[in-house]
């Protein structure tokens, strides 16, 4: 594409995926995954999983987010516009989730627990999982993001990832036959929901406007089709689905641990690949309508 063609053709979003922008992809992914692990673990009193989720969110996700900033030491200013900015709100949600989550873990470890605290932690954990979806949804210049389905997809994938990792942790704590069975039920439902959501999301964005159509084509048929079909569909969905189907007959406790771990790893890879495509495939509407048919960008 020539330099000035962005006035009449869609242009790719680059700041939040190219170069250092990859840190933001990882930040959103690990923050939501960590919160998802913690969220699921609270329902089963899985202290180890809670700790893993807390650390993933705080250290990996939070660290990546801080590293992405141009001036990291000014991050404390990011709570100034809670009334309008989703990044501000997200920082509040993450901070309160981490603080309350830490207190919750300490209380549980001491043999004490507070239902009110648990509910509060879960509320902020859920808000932590979903806020990035709203942050992207706010951008009305990018049809691929400006859809009500995106926050829901982020919420489902965050909880699904959390449940999967929590299941993996039960392999090490020896609780597969108890907690693992319940987690498997969560995973079956969330996996099905995620598949339906992704299909509906791509179809609905395709009908939004020509830029939305170009975004979906770019992801599904364009230069990123290998990542979509191999990364998201086959690795991220088909393989885990196959394992879920097999476990329906054998029972999760009888599945080989290696297969379960592979399924969990593939699910996380597929989720990360989908998030990458959502950021990479994002196209801005052109500034003015073109008199010529819109051409696909390709990669």
């Amino acid at each position, binding site marked *: 594409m020539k330099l000035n063609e962005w006035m009449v053709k869609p242009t790719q979003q680059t700041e939040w995926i190219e170069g250092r922008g990859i840190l933001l992809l990882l930040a959103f992914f690990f923050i939501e995954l960590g919160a998802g692990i913690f969220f699921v673990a609270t329902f089963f009193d899985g202290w180890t999983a809670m700790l893993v989720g807390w650390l993933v969110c705080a250290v990996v996700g939070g660290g990546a987010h801080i590293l992405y900033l141009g001036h990291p030491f000014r991050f404390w*200013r990011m709570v100034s516009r809670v009334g309008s900015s989703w990044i501000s709100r997200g920082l509040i949600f993450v901070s309160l989730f981490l603080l309350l989550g830490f207190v919750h873990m300490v209380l549980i470890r001491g043999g004490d627990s507070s239902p009110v605290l648990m509910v509060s932690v879960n509320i902020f954990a859920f808000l932590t999982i979903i806020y990035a979806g709203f942050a992207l949804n706010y951008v009305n210049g990018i049809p691929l993001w400006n859809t009500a389905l995106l926050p829901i997809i982020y919420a489902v994938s965050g909880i699904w990832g959390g449940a999967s990792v929590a299941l993996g942790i039960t392999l090490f704590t020896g609780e597969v036959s108890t907690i693992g069975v319940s987690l498997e039920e969560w995973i079956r439902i969330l996996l099905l929901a995620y598949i339906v959501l992704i299909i509906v999301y791509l179809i609905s964005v395709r009908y939004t406007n020509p830029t939305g159509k170009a975004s979906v084509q770019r992801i599904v048929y364009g230069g990123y089709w290998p990542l979509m079909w191999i990364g998201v569909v086959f690795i991220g969905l088909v393989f885990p689905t196959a394992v879920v189907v097999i476990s329906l007959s054998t029972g999760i406790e009888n599945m080989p641990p290696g297969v379960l771990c592979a399924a969990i790893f593939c699910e996380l890879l597929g989720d990360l690949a989908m998030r990458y495509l959502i950021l990479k495939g994002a196209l801005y509407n052109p500034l003015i309508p073109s008199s010529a048919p819109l051409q696909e960008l390709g990669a």
Partner: protein
Amino acid sequence: MRWGMVIDRKRCIGCYACMVSCKQSHALPPEVFWNRVLISETGVYPMVTKQILPVICNHCKEAACVNACPTGATEKREADGIVWVDADKCVGCRYCLIACPYQMRTFHADKRQEYWPGQGLTELERFGREELYPLQPKTVVKCNFCMERLEEGQRRGLRVGIDREATPICVNACPVKARIFGDLDDPGSNVSKLIKERRGYPLHPEYGTEPSVCYLD
């Protein structure tokens, strides 16, 4: 009072004077543009359409960037509607850059970036970037309607948009007077009259941002 600009696309000849003058007066480094002239051809010969579109920050009344900024670095001045960035507050998250549907913001990465890599900065570039108009690296920058010139001009009692010392650089630089600057809240101002008489339009009004920059065809 709400400062705004009208750009007459019928007059614009695509000479890039506005773009160059803005870059020079603000000592902008490579790949940082506050003013752009977009020229595009669409269609297939013989049915070809050439379009010239000078673009700057629209200083929207309902700016998406202002709502997106988590630190309050991006603000809209209540007195005159200019949207500006306080570099000392900017954390460099680039959410405002993403949120702007017109893609008018730039992340200023490195003030020592050279136009000809390996040859160093010229004396003029060094003076411009370090003394005349220093920009803070690792922050988001954009057009500010030359607000320093407007403030200085108002302080001296000049007429904004009419007297050259109180008018944005790009408006002064245009050789065909395709850019007009004035108060959109004043129905008797030159910009308001032009918008009404010649049916001026903003870019993408459906976004609800209410831009302060309008175009005439």
